[in-house]
């Protein structure tokens, strides 16, 4: 993975840049010594590491604005960072860049139950939003598996999902407003407590923009009333195809479960051995389906899904009878990462989305690839919405294993695109999948997307080297190839 070549002139000016930043953020908010900088050298994509030139931890919107203005003025690049849990390298530092961390933006500003929303600073963790409202039986719905550590600002940047977004939507569907600072220091507000921002939906456009468009300094999210009850079901199958078929039947019968997860044999075994979750070891595919809502509804839907499962030939079926049992069913799935970590020294987490019905083909081809590369793969799958998380098992101490694992991962993602899916469902492109963007988009598609960046960040200093494989200058993107002479009326039916 190639990052833009560090600008030696900028690195030579490091002490001047530090002085400018210290003038804006006094005290311990500017980190310069190597030991402390090493904390920031990577995010959740740990295969890539780079010490940042300097880290700055502002605590007010004004400071963020001044930092960006100063950096734009000096031509210095900025890498925004929340908790650094991202899995695609979106917060990978640059040798000639300032990492701007938002950890000091950690306050909950306003809980407005009457309008079912919370206004928080971007460094507040996902779980902390729920914690702040749970005494009143509310919660924040998007639940990425890193929810204890990941921040709301980062969730917006990556359009984070989770197990429950099948029914309750992704971050973008639960976001009401933001305050953000542009690279030129301008502070803008998008949305608020009302629905649908006026004008162009810039709020939608910045969600999932991976820190390329601005620095978010305040977030307003929708909170939801906790469902009255929830029950989970375990449904096992002899074949992955039967499991996929069951998912399709459930959805087409008009049921949208709170969550519907699927895993393959390698994953089931690893999880059940890690923590007893009641998973059967003699099935090829296992579904964890959760129904939530009023008791009468949950009971009714459980019965219907039981029937559907039998109809498609399930070989194992259990329904949680107590809240404790429901939690037990989830334990394995929730510990997907540590349980895989126990059976393999290292693993790569992939994240593609496919049309659900292509699952059996995709898994078959994935197993072929697994043999071809000589690497094992475990699959956990947000089955309801087609979001696939193959975990490629490798050993970083074996020379060449990481390269092989990455190549295997690329092949899987290409396969996702080939069957009508996308490169990333919820982890983002970052640096990890950057060079695969051409599998999905033409040069014109990507240029059009980058013109959006130019509107927000004319200087191109915000998080360069992420998402887009080729960096274009805004002036070049603005150039139009207009025909010398005027085109005659085209041959189109006219009235």
């Amino acid at each position: 993975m190639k990052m833009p070549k560090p600008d030696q002139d900028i690195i030579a000016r490091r002490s001047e840049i530090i002085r400018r930043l210290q003038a804006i953020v006094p005290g311990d908010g500017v980190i310069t010594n190597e030991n402390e900088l090493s904390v920031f050298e990577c995010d959740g994509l740990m295969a890539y590491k780079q010490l940042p030139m300097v880290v700055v931890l502002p605590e007010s919107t004004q400071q963020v604005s001044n930092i960006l203005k100063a950096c734009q003025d000096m031509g210095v690049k900025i890498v925004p960072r929340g908790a650094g849990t991202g899995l695609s390298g979106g917060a990978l530092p640059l040798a000639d860049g300032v990492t701007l961390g938002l950890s000091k933006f950690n306050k909950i500003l306003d809980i407005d139950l009457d309008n079912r929303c919370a206004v928080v600073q971007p460094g507040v963790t996902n779980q902390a939003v729920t914690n702040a409202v749970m005494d009143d039986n509310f919660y924040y719905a998007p639940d990425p598996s890193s929810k204890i550590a990941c921040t709301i600002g980062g969730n917006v940047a990556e359009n984070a999902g989770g197990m429950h977004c099948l029914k309750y939507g992704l971050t973008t569907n639960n976001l009401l407003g933001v305050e953000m600072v542009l690279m030129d220091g301008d502070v803008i507000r998008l949305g608020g407590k009302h629905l649908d921002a006026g004008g162009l939906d810039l709020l939608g456009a910045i969600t999932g923009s991976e820190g390329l468009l601005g620095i978010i300094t305040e977030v307003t999210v929708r909170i939801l009333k906790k469902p009255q009850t929830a029950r989970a079901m375990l449904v096992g199958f002899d074949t992955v195809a039967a499991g996929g078929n069951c998912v399709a039947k459930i959805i087409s019968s008009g049921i949208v479960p709170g969550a519907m997860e699927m895993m393959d044999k390698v994953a089931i075994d690893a999880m059940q051995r890690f923590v007893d979750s009641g998973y059967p070891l003699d099935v090829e595919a296992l579904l964890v389906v959760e129904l939530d809502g009023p008791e009468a509804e949950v009971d009714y839907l459980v019965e219907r899904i039981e029937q559907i499962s039998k109809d498609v030939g399930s070989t194992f079926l259990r329904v949680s009878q107590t809240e404790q049992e429901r939690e037990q069913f989830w334990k394995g799935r929730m510990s997907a990462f540590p349980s895989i970590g126990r059976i393999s020294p290292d693993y790569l987490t992939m994240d593609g989305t496919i049309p659900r019905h292509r699952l059996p083909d995709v898994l078959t081809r994935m197993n072929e690839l697994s043999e071809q590369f000589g690497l094992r793969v475990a699959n956990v799958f947000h089955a309801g919405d087609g979001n696939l998380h193959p975990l490629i098992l490798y050993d970083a101490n074996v020379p060449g294993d990481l390269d092989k694992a990455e190549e295997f991962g690329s092949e899987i993602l290409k396969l996702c695109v080939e069957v009508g899916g996308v490169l990333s469902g919820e982890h983002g492109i970052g640096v990890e999948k950057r060079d695969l963007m051409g599998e999905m988009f033409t040069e014109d598609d990507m240029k059009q997307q980058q013109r959006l960046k130019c509107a927000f960040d004319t200087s191109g200093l915000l998080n360069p080297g992420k998402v887009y494989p080729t960096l274009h200058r805004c002036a070049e993107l603005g150039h139009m190839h207009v025909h010398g002479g005027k085109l005659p009326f085209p041959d189109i039916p006219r009235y």
Partner: protein
Amino acid sequence: MADIFKPEKGTQVLDAVKWAVSNKASLEIIGQGTKRGLGRAVEAKAVLDMSNISGITLYEPEELVMTARAGTPLTEVQAALDDANQMLAFEPWSPKSIYGAEGGTVGGMFAANVSGPRRILAGAARDHMLGFKAVSGRGEDFKSGGRVVKNVTGFDLTKLMAGSMGTLGVMTEVSFKVLPKPEKSRTVLLFGASSETKAMIAAQSSPYEVSGYAHLPRSMAERSSVDYVKNAGQDVTAFRIEGPAPSVTVRCEALRKLLAPLGESVEELHTTNSQALWAEIRDVSYFTPEKQIWRLSVTPSEGPEIAKSLNGEYVLDWAGGLIWLALDPSDDAEVDKVRGAMQSGHATCMRAADAVRAKIDVFQPQDTALAALTKRVRAGFDPHGIFNPGRV
């Protein structure tokens, strides 16, 4: 009379835009032209009529996804969805009551982000749009998004296209999410709420998953086609409950209990009446044709007070977050009074004569930094301003 281009395939759309770019000519993009009254009247060199770029290209009910060309009539989409017992969950309104024309196209619906009462639970049109193909104002094909729901692959230009009023590009194809129709739909009516604000907050703070919250002041309720509402003789606050039959029964009962102490009495509408009432609310069918109509999106708990302060006829939707306001005709649609009543949010003048709309900001004006950013974003898609000039 402007020329009308009526392309029959995507390459002809591209040709038309290329022609416009090279001749510095502007284009008004229309589907069936049902919502031309929204925004200022467009004065363009030519009309690009997309109604022949039509047809559903993919519909997989079990995958909850449909792809249709931009000019596909909504009636065709509706019929296909009905066959599979599915729906557009964001409940788009029909332009009939406001603009007098029935119908509309897929492209027009998404370009105007048309969403109805269920928006508060299920999201807006923009939340259901998954991807698109379009031609930019640079005369280039481009696409974004896809046909799957979970997708963080490049910037989400799809959201940007939704509600852009055709000012960023000419969409040729759209993919969107569809959902199963609820098994059952009922409505709990609260008559004579002592405070509709409190009643709607109480319902929102309940776990009963209400899929529509509307408030009709007595004078509006009297115009309803549903007898229970029409003959109420007082204000009517309506709460819709949808879902599997056993669940709907239980939730309606619980909601009735919750609401009863908050007004004079409660009543329950079953399927037919319930559907009729929400269709009226969705399509804003309470105002007479001479009225000027505003649509205000505000903080929900503030909606009732703002609406009352404006001295017009009004209906509240989205638990107070959406005010449909009707005013007697005036030269400026009382723009200052309307926008002055709001602390935050945005107000759109949905209906007024061309001359009135030409004079005022139909859409909420933005502060300097945001307006400048919006302008730069537009220029990135349509540098010469050839699409729908003047409309927003």
